[in-house]
C-alpha cells in the first residue's frame, strides 16, 4: 500500500477552516484462492434430510475451484471542516468528508473457521450459490471501494466548571462491508477423520457460516459528554452515545451497539480517591434478521484508594468492585454474546507500593 496525504488549516477571524485529502494505492494479490465444495447446510429438519441424502452416495468427487485473484484499489478521501468560536469558551464545528476504504484481505478472501469468534468466515469474493453441490460460489458482484459521505456537527464548551461536547453525525456509506449470518453451518475442520461422528450427525464440530457482503448503509447518531467540577475534590461526568445503523434498502445492520448512558462520579483529595461508574446499556432490538434481541443492563463499578506513607515508602490500599449488582450483561456487538456474557460481580482488595 502507498498513500499520500495532505492537511491544511487556516484561521479566518473566528473561523478555523480545515482541509484534508488522502489518496492511496492498495494492491492485493492472491495467486491461488481455493474454493472448495462446502457442504454447508442449515439445521432445520428438511435440510437435514437433504444432508443425509448427500452422504448416502457411496462415492463422490469433490472439486476445489482455484482462482488467481489480483486487485487494485485507489481510494481517495477528502474532508473539509470549519470551527467557529462564536462566543468565548464555546465553539461549534461542522465537518463534511468523503472517505474511501479498500476492503481488507480478510474481508475479501476469508474461507475457513475463525476460532476467536467461533464462526466459519467467508470473504466477499464469494456468495451463496443455491447450488446443491456447494453452498458457495464466486460472487458475481463487483468488488468496490467502501465509500462514505459524512457530516459531523459538534458543539463544545471548553471553559468554566461545566464543560460539554455534543456531537451528531450522519454517514451515508456505499458498499459497507459487514458480516452476515447465512444460517448455514459448516464443519470446523477438526476431527475430519472421525467417520462415526459424522454418521451420527453430531453438530458439535460445526460452525455458523458468516459471509462478508457489501451493501449501502446509513449510520447516524450522537455522542454527548458533560463534565461538572462541583468542588475542588468532587467531579461529576455524564455521557451518552447512540448509533442507528440501517441498510439503505431496509433492515438493520447486525451487531450494532445499543444506546449507552452513564455517569462517572469522582472524589479526589491528596490521600483519598474514589470513583463510582454507572453505565446503562439499553436494550438492542433494532437487529438483523439472524440476530436476537439483547436485553439492557446497568453496570456499576466502584473504586476507592487511600494513599499513605510507611518508612518513606509511598503505599496505596485500594478496594475495587466491578458489576456490583451482578447483572447478567450480554454484549450485543459480540459474536459470542449467547456463549460468553460479561463477568459477574467481582471485588478486589489490594495494597500497592511505589518504589
Amino acid at each position, binding site marked *: 500500500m502507498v498513500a499520500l496525504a*495532505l492537511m*491544511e488549516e*487556516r484561521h479566518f477571524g473566528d473561523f478555523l477552516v480545515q*482541509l484534508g*485529502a488522502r*489518496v492511496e494505492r492498495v494492491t492485493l494479490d492472491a495467486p*491461488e484462492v*481455493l474454493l472448495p465444495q462446502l457442504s454447508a447446510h442449515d439445521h432445520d429438519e428438511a435440510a437435514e434430510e437433504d444432508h443425509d441424502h448427500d*452422504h448416502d*452416495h*457411496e*462415492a*463422490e*468427487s*469433490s*472439486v*476445489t*475451484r*482455484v*482462482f*488467481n*485473484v*489480483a*486487485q*487494485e*484499489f*485507489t*481510494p*481517495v478521501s*477528502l474532508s473539509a471542516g470549519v470551527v467557529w468560536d462564536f462566543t468565548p469558551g464555546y465553539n461549534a464545528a461542522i465537518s463534511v468528508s468523503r472517505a*474511501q476504504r*479498500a476492503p481488507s484481505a480478510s474481508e475479501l478472501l476469508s474461507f475457513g473457521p475463525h476460532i476467536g469468534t467461533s464462526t466459519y468466515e467467508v470473504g466477499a*469474493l464469494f456468495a451463496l450459490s443455491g447450488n446443491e453441490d456447494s453452498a458457495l460460489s*464466486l460472487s458475481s458482484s*463487483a*468488488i*468496490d*471501494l467502501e*465509500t462514505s459521505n459524512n457530516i459531523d456537527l459538534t458543539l463544545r464548551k471548553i471553559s468554566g466548571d461545566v464543560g460539554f461536547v455534543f456531537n451528531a453525525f450522519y454517514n451515508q456509506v456505499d458498499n459497507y462491508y459487514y458480516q452476515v449470518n447465512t444460517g448455514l453451518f459448516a464443519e470446523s475442520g477438526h476431527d475430519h*477423520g472421525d*467417520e462415526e461422528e459424522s454418521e451420527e450427525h453430531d453438530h458439535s464440530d460445526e460452525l455458523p457460516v458468516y459471509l462478508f457482503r457489501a451493501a449501502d448503509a446509513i449510520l447516524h447518531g450522537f455522542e454527548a459528554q458533560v463534565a461538572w467540577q462541583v468542588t475542588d475534590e468532587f467531579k461529576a461526568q455524564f455521557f451518552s452515545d447512540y448509533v442507528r445503523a440501517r441498510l439503505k434498502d431496509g433492515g438493520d445492520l447486525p451487531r450494532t451497539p445499543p444506546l449507552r448512558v452513564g455517569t462517572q462520579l469522582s472524589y479526589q483529595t491528596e490521600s483519598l480517591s474514589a470513583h463510582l461508574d454507572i453505565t446503562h446499556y439499553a436494550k438492542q432490538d433494532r437487529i438483523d434478521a439472524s440476530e436476537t434481541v439483547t436485553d439492557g443492563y446497568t453496570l456499576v463499578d466502584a473504586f476507592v484508594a487511600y494513599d499513605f506513607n510507611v518508612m518513606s515508602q509511598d503505599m496505596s490500599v485500594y478496594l475495587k468492585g466491578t458489576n456490583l449488582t451482578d447483572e447478567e450483561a450480554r454484549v450485543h456487538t459480540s459474536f459470542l454474546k449467547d456463549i460468553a456474557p460479561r463477568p459477574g460481580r467481582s471485588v478486589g482488595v489490594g495494597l500497592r507500593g511505589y518504589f
Partner: protein
Amino acid sequence: MNTQTKLTFLAAAISSVLLTGCGDAETTIVELPPIEEEHDHDEGEEHNHDEYEIDSAGRLSVTDADSNALAIFDLDDNSLLDTFSLTHSGSALMHSADYRFAVVTSRANDLVEFIDGGLWREDHVEHLHDYEEAPAYSDFTLAGSRPTHVDGHNSQLAVFYDGDADSGIPASVQVVTDTDIAAETAEVNTLTFNVNMHGVAKPVDDMLIASVRRDDSETTSANPILPDSVGIYHRHDGDYEQEQLFAGECPDLHGAALNDEHVVFGCSDGVLVLHAHDEEYESLKVDNIDELNGMRIGTVYAHHDVETFIGIASQHGGGSAVLTAIDPELGEMEAIDWEPETNAHPVSYGFSFDGEHFLILDDLGYLSVLSAHEHDDHAHWELEERLDISDADLSLMPEGGAFSMTIAQNAAEVYVADPIAQHVLVIDLESGETTGDIELDFVPSAVTWLGIAEAH
C-alpha cells in the same frame, strides 16, 4: 503571492485533481484448473486401503542345495528378481516374523543372516502403508552359539541358540522384529541361560516363554540336553527376567507352538499346555495316547484362528509319523488318520494361511490336505484330498534332497519345491490345481514365502 497562498492554491489544485479522479477499484480473477479429489464417504478406510496398499502375490526365496546361493522370485510373474551369495552353504531357511526377510541360519557357523524380500507393510496409524522394493542383502546379522530353532509370533522372531557344552557356552535367545532388522538395531532383546540346551522359545508381547534346563541331578529328562521345564520371562530394559517356572513338568521337552490362547510343548510323557489367566500362566498336562505306539510328540503346529494344535510324533530318520489333534481347552489328544500312502514319510507340515487346512507333504510327492469337521463339539481333522505333485522317478532324488514347501500368507496357495524336476509348483488349495510352475536352474533345498501377510 506569499508562501501560504501558494500552498493553499497547491492544496486546492491537488484536491481538484483528486476529486475529478475519484476512487477506483479493479479486480481481475482468472480461474485456474480445479483440484479434483475422489471421496468415498461410506468406506473411508477402504479409500486409504486402495491408496497405500499393494496387491502382490509376494516373493519366494529358494536356496540352492549345491551352493550358497539364495534366489528371490517375484510371485506376480514368477520372474527371478535377484540371487544372493550367502556366507555359508547348507544353511537353514526361515522367514522373519512379518515375512519381510528371509532368515538364513548356519548352525555350524553360529551365524544368522537376513535377506530383505523387499515387500513390507508399515502401520502409519491413519493407514497401513505397503512398500515394494528390490530384494537386498541386509547388513544386519545375529551371532550366537548354535542357532537352531527360529520361531515367529505376532511380529517377533525368537532365535534359540543351543549353546555348546564343549566350549561351556550357555544357551540363549534373541528376539527381533522386522523393524529391528530393517533398522539394523544395536540393542537386541536377549535372554541368556546358565547352561546349554536344545531348547525352544516363543515370544508373546513383552514376555518370552522358553524352555529351561535344570541341573542334571534334578532333571526329569532322559536325555539331559533336552530341557524339562518351562519358564515365563518378562522383558525389562532389553533383558528377560524369570517370573514363573514350571519345573520338571515337561521331560525331554522338544517342539512348541502357540496360538492366541495357549502354548503347547512336546514332552516325552505327553504335551504341556500353558494358558494365561489373570497375568499368571497355569499349566495342564495332556498324556500321550496309545495310538502314538510309544513315540512322543516332538513337533507341534498351531494357527492363530484354530483352537486345535497338531502334534507330530515321528521316528528319527524320517520314519512313519503319527499325527494328533490336541484340544488344549479340554485337555484331550486324539490321533488323526491322515490315511498315508504306503511307505510315505512326511517331510513338511503346515497350516494354510487361513487355518482351514493342515498340509502334509511327504517324500513320495503327495500333498495331503486335511480339514476339520465339527462333531460332538470336537474338531476332527480328516483327509480331504491328496494331490500328487510329482510324477518324477523318485529314485532320481539327489542325495540328501527332499521335497519342500512353503505356504503363502495372503492366499490359499502353497509352493512345493521339487529337486528332481528343479522347479517350484504353485498349488491353489481351493481348486487343488497346479496354477504355476517356476523353473529353476539349480536344485532347490528349501523355499520360504515372503511378502505382506493378510492381517488377522
